[in-house]
């Protein structure tokens, strides 16, 4: 039976150097409910995002993705789950500089074990306005174009959950709106649920806050 929620998180605590750096009592995310993980720098947004992606597990508490307990399924299980169901847009984008735009997407499909789908891949690039730049190297693109490649790469495996880490930091209002519009539009078109980790309160006008994190000291209080 399919899980009712994409994410179910309860009483999660994560520590670094013996001190708690993240404490979350509860978070549930049903499919299709886009939203924000809001919090200032150092509040553990990225840590939580990485946990949701299965890149790490909490020291304490329960966390499941699509009904799978991320602590129980092990490293390989989390890799598989992430490949099949999660797309991530990193703050620094981290495109593979050695290969072309299209190859960045092909590689993402390959690493996820998905069958090649050239038509789908080119359609996706067309959707983000980069069909003409498919063979360009990331270094030949503008920052905005690189951001669109990162979004396309995150969606190329048709994930159920699209995570974006600080996608609008250091952007002016116009570009901030454009990036969120792009993420929302592409998530909708791909049937993915968008979760944005940000400290940028401007986004509150476009997406609801699902969870607001405080700094660790405040969390403890």
């Amino acid at each position, binding site marked *: 039976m399919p899980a009712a929620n994409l994410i179910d998180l309860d009483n999660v605590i994560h520590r670094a150097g013996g001190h708690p750096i993240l404490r979350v009592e509860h978070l549930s995310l049903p499919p299709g409910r886009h939203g924000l993980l809001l919090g200032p720098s150092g509040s553990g947004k990225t840590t939580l995002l990485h946990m949701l*992606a299965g890149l*790490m597990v909490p020291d304490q508490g329960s966390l499941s993705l699509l009904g799978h307990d991320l602590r129980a399924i092990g490293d390989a299980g989390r890799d598989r789950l992430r490949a099949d169901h999660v797309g991530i847009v*990193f703050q620094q984008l981290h495109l593979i*500089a*050695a*290969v072309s735009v299209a190859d960045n997407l092909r*590689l993402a499909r390959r*690493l996820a*074990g998905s069958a090649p789908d050239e038509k789908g891949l080119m359609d996706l690039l067309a959707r983000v306005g980069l069909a003409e730049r498919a063979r360009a190297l990331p270094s030949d693109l503008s920052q905005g174009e690189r951001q669109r490649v990162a979004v396309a790469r995150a969606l190329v495996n048709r994930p159920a959950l699209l995570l974006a880490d600080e996608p609008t930091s250091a952007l002016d209002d116009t570009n901030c709106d454009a990036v969120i519009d792009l993420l929302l539009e592409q998530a909708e078109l791909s049937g993915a649920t968008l979760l944005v980790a940000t400290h940028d309160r401007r986004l509150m006008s476009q997406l609801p806050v699902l969870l607001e994190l405080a700094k660790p000291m405040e969390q403890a209080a």
Partner: protein
Amino acid sequence: MNMLGLSLAYLRRRPLTTALNLLLLALGVALIAFLLLLERGLENRLSRDVAGIDMVVGAKGSPLQLVLSAVLQVDVPTGNVPLAALEDLRRNPLVRQAVPVAMGDSFGSYRILGTEPAYIDHYGGRLAAGRMFEGPMEAVLGAEVASASGLGLDSPLVGSHGLTVGGEAHADTPCRVVGILTRTGTVLDRLVLTPVASVWAVHDHHHHHEDKAEETADDHDHGAEKGHDHDAAVDHDREVTAILVRYATPLAAARLPREINSQTSMQAASPAAEMLRLRALMGLGLDAMRLLGLVLVLAAGLSTFVALANALQERQYDLAVMRALGAGRGRIMGQILTEAMLVALGGAVLGIALAHGGVAALSGFSARGRDLGLSAGQFVAGEGLLLLLSLLVALLAAALPAIRAYRTDVSRLLAKG
């Protein structure tokens, strides 16, 4: 875009480093492979040249020198032996065949060898043109001599005194070319063959000429005529340089050499035993060269290690992103290993190609190379091992960077930005 394509893309992004690593490995592999090919050629050549000759009888001296001079035609003779010794050996029931060789002159860089048609038969010599020599001053050319000199049938052939280039020409006593042999891949190819009587005749004439000029000293390095009394030239005074013997029975190996060494003023040498000594002597030099090649291969491994370690530093985010995209730790490790293997495979293949190119050049431009019967299209088993060695060195070089990549804490790295 598969892992191989990605590895190639990364290698292309560092063209200088990749080329340097490839070249280092290729040079090491090429050196070792070239030595392997050369060694095999030399082994084959030595085996072909000494095959079927059980014993060489010659003047006392170094047995290795005797075999080198009388069988391989590469050293100066130890001296001469009486022609009567040939007759004695032929009468011996332990001997199946005894063939004389007489030398002392050369034609360019090729030796003129006085012998009998049985010598040519022994090496499987066949006439490509003309006929076998039948009388004195008739010569049959080995294939290499004919090809290098351009001499044809009926051409006069003027030998020069001594076994090295630049001796006094025997212009008054030219031979006539009556036959040309097909290539055999043996010592025959680089010899001018003539009856023993030709060697005697040339040097009878030479000594007569010298006596007339009241020469008092004869310090020539040639062999067959040395010391004989040409004014009283009768067969029992004649000498030959050496006698090549085939045994009639295995028992001969135990008796004949001992008898000759202890009861005559001659020595008997076993080509097989002397070849073992020669291989041992050559082995030292070849081992030193092989060691140099190995050092180059290891240096390439070290260089690959440094390159991969640096690349890992540069690409840590790429590898982390690949993990985030769903690649397992094993796959990331495989990516690093694939890259090293590609360099190793490319370097080894390039090295082996260079070695075979070297062989092709050697056999194309050098008579000595052709003489070894080297073929660029032939491979030796050692080359396969060399390929495996290269892959192993690359595997070791990539192991540490791959393990580091395997252990990377992706989340912490990506959180750093």
